[in-house]
């Protein structure tokens, strides 16, 4: 619709960007420290997936979108203080966190 010039975004890409915007908006309502942490985790997660996930893997992207929307709803609740991320690939870190 809006993107008449420049690269044309697919519907799925628009949804991802809209979700990203939603996360950044939600982060604004949190206290400064939490906010910075949320922003860095969310940004790292989106960037990691943008590099790792094949752009034709629609089912997986749709799954990530659904998961992200749920996480965003949780983050929006005033009770939620912040996010934390677990690095599943390295078992040592996971043990340290739990």
């Amino acid at each position, binding site marked *: *619709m*809006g*993107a*008449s*010039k*420049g*690269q044309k*975004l697919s519907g799925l*890409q*628009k949804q991802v*960007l*809209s979700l*990203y*915007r939603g996360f*950044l*908006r939600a982060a*604004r309502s949190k206290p400064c420290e939490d906010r910075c942490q949320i922003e860095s985790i969310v*940004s790292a997660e*989106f*960037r990691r997936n*943008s590099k790792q996930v094949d752009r034709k893997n629609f089912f997986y992207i749709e799954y990530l979108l659904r998961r992200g929307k749920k996480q965003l709803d949780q983050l929006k609740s005033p009770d939620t203080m912040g996010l934390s991320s677990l690095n599943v690939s390295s078992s040592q870190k996971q043990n340290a966190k739990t």
Partner: protein
Amino acid sequence: MASMAGSSISMQPRHTLATTRVSGLKLVSFMNQGRSSLSFNLRPMPARLRISCAAKPETVDKVCAIVRKQLALPNDKPVTGDSKFADLGADSLDTVEIVMGIEEEFGIAVEEDNAQSITTVQDAADLVEKLCSEKSA
């Protein structure tokens, strides 16, 4: 009616042909809209003309600073109104961040459709001016 004609004449010498044509169009639409409050309809005209022109240099500079900060560009990298975000190395996620930074800096809310049509610093500055004037109006 007489006061309308007077205002359009006073504008002609200052602007190019294109803007004269614009003010002519505006006059027609004003006449259609309503003749009840002549003076009220006439006053917003200069303001609207200013918006249709390019954004103020301060706004462009501010947007450039936000872009520079968001993309962590080195100081020797030139950022001007014509700079395309993609040419500065921004992907679509960076563009979202830039738009969010602009929203906070200027205290405005950019709609999603608009946010995705922004590709240059000038686009962003023009949109900021439009939204700021809508907010103050």
